[in-house]
């Protein structure tokens, strides 16, 4: 079944770019929120992750902070 992925990012964050490339490479579609501009998304991100760093990645309700390739591979069932 297709995974539901939400990425909270800022435009200047390289780990956000790496996360997005990771999902593209693995043919997993995602919704992206730019928390530098979208205040509502920023609050949502802080609420989900209880912290202030990007990226925050929500895979089917499981919340990951930062870009950790092996964790995300597990999350999308690649490992």
């Amino acid at each position, binding site marked *: 079944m297709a995974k539901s992925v939400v990425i909270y990012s800022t435009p200047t*964050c*390289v780990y956000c770019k790496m996360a997005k490339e990771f999902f593209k490479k693995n043919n997993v579609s995602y919704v992206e929120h730019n928390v*530098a*501009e979208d205040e509502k998304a920023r609050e949502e991100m802080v609420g989900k992750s209880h912290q*202030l760093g990007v990226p925050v990645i929500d895979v089917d309700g499981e919340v990951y902070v930062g870009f950790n390739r092996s964790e995300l591979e597990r999350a999308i069932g690649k490992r």
Partner: protein
Amino acid sequence: MLYDLVIVGGGPAGIAAGVYAARKKNKAVLITESFGGQSLVSAEVQNWIGTKSLSGLELAQNLEEHLRGQDGIEIIENDLVTKVDKTAGGFSVTTREGKTLETKTILVCSGSRRRKLGVPGEKELDGKGVAYCATCDAPLFSNKTVAVIGSGNAGLEAVHDLLAYVSKVYLLNRGEAIRGDAVTFESIKNDARVEVIMLAEAREILGDKFVSGLKYLDKKSNEVKTLELQGVFVEIGSLPNVEFLGDLVKKNKYNEIEIDALTQQTSQPGIWAAGDATTVLYKQNNISAGDAIKAVLNIQEYLNKNK
């Protein structure tokens, strides 16, 4: 199987070594967590020779692509060398994911990592207002008050990045003089939102769920003072990644690996080192790459002699 060479690290030094080792037809393997080294997070790199300007991510991708374009080099990624032991024929290298590799020689290109403050609250509030990447996280501190600790170039650039968003930045400096470039300091110090506090030593980061303050020792008056703020960006330099070597090689008092400047040899025959993990005076991408190449060429002589 016995390798000729194990390259530890995937930054500019490691990649340069990998490319040269492949062209020398060494039986070589490169082990790295990720590619690109510490410049990965830089928004823009303007001094990588041959390219006028590129992002840290592009630099990392170019390096990775150059390495993958070589025949005969083995790559182990998403892994990390955790231990090196001396053996009869050379060395045994152990990785976090449980691999063990036997090799004649090792080139250490493991670089360095950010130094932490080591004060109460830093660990507990990591990500909750304590941050180490202003380029990444500055927008999350819109209209907030933050502190940057450290006045090297990284600290000054953090202040610069933050000024696009925050309402106030304290720049705390432990010493009497700003350590970064005067040009960068000039560009930020006249902003009314910047307050520079010299001779200030961070003591504790305060906060429950998120950062709410910073205690520091004012070394002029010898008083502990408190700033009310929501973010602390730590930019106080780096530590070499050398723990996996134990006592195999000689290090200086900063824990940097001592090298022979002509050959990059360490005090341990069979181990070479290049880049930010070494005593090299200037920690620069171009220098790391060049020094690693020097090492690989010297390793050829060693391999030929010890056939």
